[in-house]
């Protein structure tokens, strides 16, 4: 027990004390009675205090610095919020997509990626479409004319037949009469 009281603190025990841990009671008694150990512990603590002050001094800045930092943080938070809100809305998403597509198309045109010659067939196609619409008008006119006819085109031969059948029967009747009366002089004179 007395031997422990006379032995100085070793480096590990000093480190323990600096770190805030407690020593065995007999070592504590030695520390309180030994100026050499107390000085060593004091020096270690002073080194740490110097280090602490150096860190704190290095992190010291005028109020302008902290104000600017708060402003930057506020801007970053606002940006993050705006971004989040915008992209959560489908309308914004659709608008942004359309705008992006338009920008890409304009840039592609400017850079010559989209060739004018590739656009030419599209123009021809448009002309074809307009020509087709003209022919549609003609067809409609034809249909209208067809509707206004007395007899449909498909029944035209039948109509002609109907017109000629009475004539033919009349001629046959005349011939029959002529045959019957060919023997009489009146008819002959006639």
């Amino acid at each position, binding site marked *: 027990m007395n031997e422990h009281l006379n032995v100085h603190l070793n480096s590990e025990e000093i480190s323990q004390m600096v770190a*805030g841990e407690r020593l065995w009671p007999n070592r504590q008694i030695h520390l309180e009675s030994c100026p050499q150990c107390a*000085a060593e512990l004091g020096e*270690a603590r*002073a*080194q740490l205090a110097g*280090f602490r002050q*150096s860190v704190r001094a290095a992190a010291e800045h005028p109020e302008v610095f*902290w104000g600017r*930092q708060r402003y930057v943080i506020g801007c970053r*938070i606002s940006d993050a919020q705006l971004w989040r809100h915008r992209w959560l809305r489908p309308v914004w998403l659709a608008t942004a997509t359309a705008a992006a597509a338009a920008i890409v198309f304009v840039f592609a045109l400017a850079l010559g990626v989209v060739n004018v010659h590739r656009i030419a067939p599209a123009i021809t196609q448009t002309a074809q479409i307009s020509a087709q619409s003209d022919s549609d008008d003609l067809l409609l006119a034809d249909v209208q004319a067809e509707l206004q006819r007395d007899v449909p085109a498909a029944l035209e031969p039948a109509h002609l037949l109907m017109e000629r059948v009475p004539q033919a029967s009349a001629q046959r009747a005349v011939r029959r009469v002529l045959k019957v009366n060919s023997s009489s002089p009146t008819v002959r004179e006639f």
Partner: protein
Amino acid sequence: MNCAAAELQLKDVEAETGIAEQDFDAIIRQHQRRIYRILMAITRNPDTAETLTQECFLRAFQKRTSFRGESSVGTWLVRIAINLARDQARSPRAGFWKKLFSPGTGDSARMGSAHDGAPDVLSEMESLPDGRSSAEKQFLAREQVDLMWKAVAKLTERQRAIFLLRFVEEMSLDEIATITQLRISSVKTHLWRATAAVRQQLRQQGSAA
């Protein structure tokens, strides 16, 4: 029955905990210096410390609704800052810059420029019972701080964080345990090892000088 009702009410309060958006400016105002100081001590680079401080508060804002109030806001913010500093140190880009400006060349001088005007350092050193002159004491104090920085830089990532939280921020072991998500016994062990390593480094560097 009453106990059950009180328990339910407590659970409701816990579920509702979180940081209101309008309180956030006050939180930044209150904690920005400490967060910056911790990040400055860990990264030893003012620009990185400033960027990570901004990132820390941005992350905190984004996660404010998930803050349950199990620890104080300050402790929560320090934990975010420590994690950010760890991630930053592990990134390949940070490794490149660290190699380029290795300890003892540029960054100790950077930090040293600030402690030139630290009167408390000198007063602490002047309290030592010896007969050296004031100028000599100032020089020794600066030397000691430089040596200490070099020694701290050689600690492992976790030991350095615990060492700085304990001796620079003077946090309790409970707080450090909450921040590092370690048991108090583990924190004590890391702290003791860090202290012993720093003292050994100081002795070696002191004898080499």
